[in-house]
C-alpha cells in the first residue's frame, strides 16, 4: 500500500513538471553531429528540436546549422562541443536571456531578438572569457580542451 502511494506521488510529481519547451531546431548537418541531453546522446538531424541545457557535439568532419526561436542563428564547426546553457524567451515581448558555452571548437553567430532586448542579454562563455553580444555577426574559436 505504501509503495503504491509512493508510485502515485511520483507519477503526480512527474506529470506536474512542465515539458521542456523547444528553443530552436537543427537545420543542417554534415558529418558526425550529436546532441547530448542529460545522460542521453542522439544523432542530430534537420528538424530536431533543441531544449535548454542541450549540448551539440561535432566530430572531426562535423558541421551543423541551428535556428533559434528569437531568430538567432548558429553555425558550429568541426570538433566542437557547445552547450545552450540558458535560453529564456518571451515571444510576445521578444525579450529574454541566452547563455551559450563554447567548451571547444568554433561557433559562428548571427544574433537575434534576445541580443537586442537588453545589454548583454545574450552571452557566450569560453574557458577564458565571457562575451556580451550586442546585435552582430561573429565567430568565436576555442582551441583548448576546456571540456568542463
Amino acid at each position: 500500500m505504501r509503495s503504491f502511494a509512493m508510485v502515485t506521488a511520483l507519477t503526480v510529481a512527474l506529470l506536474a513538471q512542465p515539458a521542456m519547451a523547444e528553443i530552436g531546431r537543427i537545420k543542417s548537418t554534415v558529418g558526425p553531429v550529436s546532441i547530448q541531453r542529460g545522460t542521453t546522446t542522439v544523432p542530430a538531424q534537420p528538424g530536431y528540436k533543441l531544449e535548454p541545457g542541450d549540448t551539440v557535439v561535432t566530430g572531426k568532419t562535423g558541421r551543423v546549422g541551428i535556428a533559434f526561436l528569437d531568430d538567432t542563428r548558429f553555425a558550429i564547426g568541426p570538433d566542437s562541443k557547445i552547450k545552450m546553457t540558458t535560453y529564456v524567451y518571451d515571444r510576445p515581448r521578444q525579450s529574454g536571456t541566452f547563455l551559450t558555452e563554447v567548451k571547444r571548437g568554433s561557433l559562428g553567430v548571427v544574433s537575434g531578438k534576445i541580443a537586442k532586448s537588453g545589454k548583454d542579454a545574450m552571452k557566450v562563455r569560453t574557458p577564458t572569457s565571457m562575451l556580451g553580444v550586442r546585435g552582430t555577426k561573429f565567430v568565436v574559436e576555442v582551441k583548448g580542451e576546456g571540456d568542463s
Partner: protein
Amino acid sequence: MRAALLALSGAIALGGCAGDMLTLAENEEGEATGAVAILDPVTGEERAVVNTKLTEAKLTSRPKPRAIKELRPAYFELLKNLPLKSERITIFFESGKQGIPPSQFGKVDDIRKAMAIRPGAQIEVVGFTDTEDSDEDNENLSTERAMSVVKELIALDLPVDPQDAVGRGEREARANGDPDNFANILYRKVEVVIR
C-alpha cells in the same frame, strides 16, 4: 574581496588557451555591425569592446583588438553553415475578423515555397492588432487571429504546432508611434514566420 576576484579571474585567464579568438564579421545586409564586449568571466567588467567589422581579438586578460583584411578561410567556410534568415509572410484582416481572407489564399503557396528551402522548418504564426479597444481585448484578439490561421494551415497539411501561435497584441503599433484607440489596418494582421 576585489583583489581575490582579480586574482581568480587572472588565474582563469592563465589557465585557458591563449589561442582562443573572437572575430567580428561584416553583418548581414541592412544590419548595423553591432558589437561584442569581452567581459571578465568573474567580475563582469569590460576588458574590451569589439565594434568594428573585420576585427579580431585574442581572448586573454588584456585583449587587444586589431583590424584584419578579411575573414580567415576556415571562418568563411564555417559561416556557410548558417541557416537561412527566417522569412515573414504577412496576411491582413478586415477589422475584427479572423482567418485567411480568400483574396490572400495565394500566400499559402508562398509559405510552402519558403518551407521547401528550409529543412526541418518551423512555422510560427504571430498575431497583431491596432490600438483600438483595450490592451486585454487586443491580446486576446491577436492570439485568436494567430490560432485561427494555425488551424487553417494545419487543415492544409502544413506542419504547424499550436504552441507556435503567438499573440503580440498592440505592441508593434504602439512601438511604431500609434496613439491609443487608433484604427490602423497595417496592424490587423498575422505574420507567418518560416525559419
